[in-house]
C-alpha cells in the first residue's frame, strides 16, 4: 500500500475518521458563510429602505 493509500485507509477506520473530519469541515464552513451572508442581506435591506426614503424601519 502506498503512503497516500495507507493515510486514507487509516488502519481500517478511514470511513469513520474521514466522515468525522468532513462533517466538522462542513459545520465550521457553514458557520462562517451564513453569518456573512446574513450581514450583507441586512445591509441590502437597509440600503433599500434608504433608497425608498423611509424614515423609520419597524421590521426587526
Amino acid at each position, binding site marked *: 500500500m502506498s503512503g497516500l493509500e495507507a*493515510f486514507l485507509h*487509516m*488502519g*481500517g*477506520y478511514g470511513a*469513520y*475518521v474521514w*466522515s*468525522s*473530519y468532513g*462533517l*466538522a469541515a462542513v*459545520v*465550521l464552513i*457553514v*458557520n*462562517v458563510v451564513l*453569518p*456573512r451572508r*446574513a*450581514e450583507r*442581506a*441586512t*445591509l*441590502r435591506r*437597509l*440600503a*433599500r*429602505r*434608504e*433608497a425608498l426614503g423611509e424614515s*423609520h*424601519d419597524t421590521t*426587526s
Partner: protein
Amino acid sequence: MNFAFLHKYAALMHCYRLSRALTPWLAGASVLLFAWGLVGGLLLAPADYQQGDSFRIMYVHVPAAWMSMFVYMAMAVAGGVALIWKLKIAEIVSRACAPLGASFTFLALVTGSIWGKPMWGTWWVWDARLTSELILLFLYLGVIALHGALDDRRAGARAGAVLALIGVVNIPIIHYSVEWWSTLHQGSTVTKFAKPSIHIDMLIPLLVMISAFQCYFAWTLLVRMRSEILAYDRNASWVRELSREHGA
C-alpha cells in the same frame, strides 16, 4: 455602583468597527491553528495502541464537546448580564452564541457517535454523558427558538437568557457524568489537576485543535454579532450612513 460608564464602551458602533478590525486576524489565526492541528493529529501523532487510527476522531470530537460547554457558559453569562444591566451588547453576544454552541454540540454528538460505532459497537447508548449532551443540544434549540419567538428582539433575548440560565444546571452534570455514573464513555484525558493520561505527541495536536476551535469561535462570534448589531441599531444614524454607502 454606577454602571452607566459601561454604555460608553458598549456603544454598538464601536463594537461593529472593532469586529471588522479583528475578524481578519482571527480568521488567519484560526486557519493556521487548524492547519497545524490537522497535520499534527492526522500525520504526526502515532496510532493509539488500543484504538488504532480511530482515536484521531478525538481531535475534532474533544474540542467540539469542550466548546459546546464553554459557549453555553458564555451565552448564559452574557444572558445574565443582559437581564441585570440591560446592556444591548450582552444581549447580542448571548444571541450570537446560541447557533454556534448548537453547532459545536451537534458536531460533538455526531463525531462521538461515529467514534462509538467501531469502538463500542454501537452508534448510541442512553448513558449519562451522551444523554446530558443531547439535553444540551435541546437547550440550545430552545434558546434559539425563544430568540426568534418574540417580535421585539430585546424581549426575545431576555426570554432566551432566562432559559439559558436555568440550563446551566446541565453543565456540571455533563462534566461529572463519567464519574458519577457508570458509562461506556471514557474518563477525561486531560484535566487541570492531574498529569494527562496521554502521550505528549498525541496531546500537543489536541491542545492546538482546542486553541483552533477557541479562535474560530471568537472569529465567527464577532461575524455573527455584526448582523445583530445592524438590526439592533437599524435606526441609528451610523447604520443609515453605512447602508447608504452599501447601496451606492
